[in-house]
């Protein structure tokens, strides 16, 4: 690490706060490019134009929601059915938004509107961890969101236009970028005994709910129940 860290300076400039966020979000970028490429390939082979695939990624920024939308459209579902399904898949953003809102009471509405646009599983995880350390600012969160968005959109563009050249986008081991980042974030969050206990409780519930519930519902179900256990046990 040869360059001095701008976050060390007592009054970091707006620019350095933003780019601090961009650096924090680099693991997300690594993970999003190949998944975005996979989406771009799939979308264009199923009848999207390259422009439509890229615009879908740029405006929805919803990994699982976009893949599910694609498969339902391919199966000939009505536009309403597709939208209902992707909305349900993305209902977990309500929970993420509610959690983030307790940290954003001093952020102006316009800033909140900008941050909401880039709220995903991964940006939520990185920003909430940065918040816990007390180092997050509106601009650093914007940096995290920006680099995530660039990864997702550029990956989609790559897949939609150059699928023949790339081949299988997973063969470089980047399939582990997201799991690796979540592993690090989990270790970071498990700061004391009660958080370790609740992490184990949540993992157990996640396995159970993943077995009995469809799609990504296990995330919301396990989180709601495990956090309730935490709130009840640790007054």
């Amino acid at each position, binding site marked *: 690490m040869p360059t001095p860290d701008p976050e060390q300076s007592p009054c970091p400039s707006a620019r350095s706060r933003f780019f601090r966020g961009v650096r*924090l979000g680099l*693991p997300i970028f*690594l*993970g999003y490019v190949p998944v975005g490429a996979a989406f771009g390939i799939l979308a264009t082979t*199923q*009848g*999207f*134009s390259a422009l439509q695939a890229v615009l879908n990624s740029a*405006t*929805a*920024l*919803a990994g699982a929601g976009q893949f599910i*939308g694609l498969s339902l*459209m391919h199966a000939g579902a009505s*536009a309403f059915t597709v*939208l209902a399904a992707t*909305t349900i898949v*993305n*209902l977990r*953003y*309500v*929970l993420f*938004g509610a*959690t983030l*809102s*307790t940290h954003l*009471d001093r*952020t102006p509405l316009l800033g*909140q509107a900008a941050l*909401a646009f880039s*709220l995903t*599983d991964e940006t939520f*995880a990185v920003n*909430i961890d940065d918040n816990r350390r007390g180092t997050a600012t509106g601009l650093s969160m914007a940096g995290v969101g920006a680099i995530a968005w660039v990864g997702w959109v550029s990956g989609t563009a790559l897949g939609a236009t150059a699928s023949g050249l790339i081949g299988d986008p997973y063969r470089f081991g*980047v399939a582990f970028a997201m*799991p*690796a*980042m*979540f*592993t*690090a*974030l*989990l*270790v970071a*969050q*498990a700061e004391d005994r009660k958080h370790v206990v609740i*992490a184990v409780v*949540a*993992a157990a519930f*996640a396995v159970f709910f*993943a077995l009995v519930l469809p799609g990504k519902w*296990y*995330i919301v179900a396990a*989180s709601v129940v495990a*956090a*309730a*256990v*935490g*709130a009840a046990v*640790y007054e």
Partner: protein
Amino acid sequence: MKASYVWAVLVGMAVANYTLRFMPIAMLSRLKLPRPVERWLSFIPVSVMAALLVGEVLRPDGTWLPPLQNPYLLAAIPTALVYYKWRSFLGTTVAGIVVFLVFRTILG
């Protein structure tokens, strides 16, 4: 696929997703939440992280893998140690990818 159908879905998905993301932040950040609710929300991040990791590692691409033949699960253990020791997200991600490639090669 008809272009008008694709465009209708694209616009609808953008609006629906944004509403879902923005409404809770805009509404709840202006309220003072009751203490028990705040305490509950304080345990949400660690719970979400654990749940996300379970899905990514035990059931990659929607398929449950047996633990000892699962390169994701095996790679997660040294990855956790790397973060615990050096506290760098980017470094941990890169190290995790390398360890994962090793396990994937060994397991075939």
